[in-house]
């Protein structure tokens, strides 16, 4: 009985390890961008191999935005740099200051 039990436990652990390993590699793979189509700002596919729209620059909004939430990402302060707060009467003490970021701050 004892060798059988040991074999079952070892086998079970091996299966569990395999599952965990597979799931971890799957998560890692999800973090990497799989091959993707470049797209023009009109959302058309760019395929240099066929020449399809191959004279157009790619658009990150259309290309990356196909999988990622482009509008949410660009709410970050690196993208806004004060633009989400900019207004002509932002400061009474310093009327030349229009926001607190690089775009509008003096």
């Amino acid at each position, binding site marked *: 009985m004892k060798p059988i039990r040991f074999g079952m436990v070892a086998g079970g652990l091996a299966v569990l390890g395999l599952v965990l390993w597979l799931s971890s590699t799957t998560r890692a793979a999800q973090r990497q961008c799989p091959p993707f189509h470049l797209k023009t700002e009109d959302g058309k596919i*760019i395929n240099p191999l066929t020449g399809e729209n191959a004279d157009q620059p790619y658009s990150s909004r259309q290309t990356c935005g196909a999988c990622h939430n482009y509008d949410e*990402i660009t709410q970050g302060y690196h*993208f806004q740099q004060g633009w989400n707060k900019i207004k002509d009467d932002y400061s009474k003490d310093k009327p030349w200051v229009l926001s607190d970021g690089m775009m509008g701050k003096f």
Partner: protein
Amino acid sequence: MAKKKNSNPDEIDITVFEWVGSGDPKTPEVPGCGGCHPGGGGLEYDRDGKRYDVALKANPELAQSLDGDYYKSHWDKSGVVEADCFICHLPGYDYGLRNRQLKMWNFKWASTAASGIGQVRGSVKENQTPTVVYNKRLFNEDGKIVLDLSYPPPATNCNFCHSMSDVKKRGFSWNDPVNYDIHNSRGMNCAQCHPAIEDKKLKITKEMHNFAKGQENVSTVADNLDFVGFKTCRQCHEQGFMGAPRPRHLSIRPNHLEKLACETCHIPALHRAAGEGFDVTTGAMVNIPKMEPPPGAKKLGQEFTWQPRFQYLKRGKLAPVNPLLPVFYTNKDKDGLYYPLFMQEIKTAWTAAEGKIKPPNPHRPDLHTPEQIKIMLTAFKTTLQGNKRFQAINPYMHKGGKVYSLDDKGEVVEAEDHTWVGHLEGFNINHNVAPATLALGAKGCGDCHSREAHMFKGQIVTDMWGPDGKPLTVSSGRLFGCQPWAFYVNQFHQTYLSPYASIILLILIFALVLHYTGQGPKGADFTYEPAEILRFRLSERWTHLVRMLAFILLALTGYIFFYNNVTMLRLFFDSPQSAVIFHWMVGLIFIAASIVSVVLWAKDARFVPYDWEWLRKQGGYFGGKEVEVPAGRLNAGQKIFLWLTAALSLIMGVTGVIMIFKDSLPLTINCLMSTIHGFFAVIFLAAVIAHAYLGTIANPGTWRALIDGKVGRKWAKKHHSEWYKEIIAQEAAAKSAEKSGAEE
């Protein structure tokens, strides 16, 4: 940045379109304003939320309007700069090529070119329509591109912007063996301290790409996110985040840890030249690299070792900073506000003034004489006439904490600069952390408190071109509130007291040994004998005992502080803080005992005429033979000792009690108090050593008077002859009274 709505072209400084494509065309790969913006936001949508290219195509007349988003723009041809994911996530991204594309107004082509996925030819600025040739080797047969994107972004990509801007602000560099960082050398990268944050209360999702940040002294960008999801030095090093070692700081005074930011000690120097300041006199931004130590650096970012200025941060701690000193121009308008002059306005004035000033270096004129300043301000008076954005023309030059203007006669008037320009905040320095062994304090207190140390005596430039055209400097300590005299008093401790105190005390002990072997102890026989006299009452003996024990403890703990002796500290205490508390608590006991001792012995310590004879005969301690000297209950030497130690106790008590509250006191007071405390502690110790010698082996048996309080009659007669006479007289009077009482 120009306002959205303008009523006159004079009001428009730099439009959004110019902002994106700005920068010196002679250095196309160096970023202008738009270079350090990854796209999206204001590079994609105008202030009304419309896409620039779409709006301008629909309304071409906007380019002729005074709209700050569209004035003289070419969005319809350049396209917009969408958020460039590759600038952060693609290793090998060509940042210089991106800048080149932006300066050619190839906004929508910039990422395609800089990412290397395609070649872009043509320039919108030269009325061409750029063309793209994609690199087919990056594409699969199905037309999908394969890119090895990095998550999180590699530090190299963060450096595109942050090395350029932060080397100027604070001498920052990363992955740089010259300007090392201990965290970097342990393999850490930007995203480990600055990860993407999420905060439900602030409604921030991880996908929003807001990164954990600390507190930036000068910048106001996203102040609401300061320390959100960010681990401070203390948090990492107390929690052991990523294996961060937990520091004990045993050799560091506790109040230093309260008053100083970690960076103050752990970033003792930077090794890339930051900016000392900037000068816009020519109408261009001219960055001036570090000038101190002389001869200064030749350009920003070059290998150059400098030490920072120190300034109190908003959170109240002293921290290393680098304030960029401005040479700047404003116009004080009718409303009393000092409006910054636009670069084009300054350039126009400079063009008018340059021929009269004739500077040796026309690209960096270094205006500093009243004549030069007068010519420049006069040029502004002329060139700003008719400028429709001002109602009054009053040009001002701001330089080195001073503001210069013209009086009614056209002469230069100098005043302290209390305007917003003169309000200098330093960029805090928080990277390029040195290993602990190189931190200030690692070699002892002298790292900061010695004569040569930068902390107080380092020279900080406060005016890039002083009256003689050379940099004007001020001692570092003075800039953060330590008066020069207080520093000189304080550095006396490190320069003279610490090195020589032990030697002086050893010489004293040696002299006492010589005295003992040469003069020898006084030969009074001190044996138990009948009819001994009570010399000290129990209250006196206890007071002396408490005072003596307290003094020994104070001397031992004081020695730890005096020499920063970590070995002794670890032997007796858990932390420097506990040693400090122990020291001042024992100090309070000592002061109380000192007061009691003065009360107990003040009457006996009054000087009387025969004390002069004692002093004249030097107490009988010199000359090689025993001499009879008159003395009361206390001899003249003991009286001097009592009053001397009373005075010393007062000094030590006052300075010590003040230092209990040192965290709330100005630096100048603390410097003064600690030096006085240390200096008189040495004198006190010397006096007590001499006292202990005289009270023990120099006068055998004297010690017993403090144990059971009794002395023999022979001893009393020899050492305290006048007191002994008083005792005999008292005894005789008592016997007489007793006898007469019995007879009655």
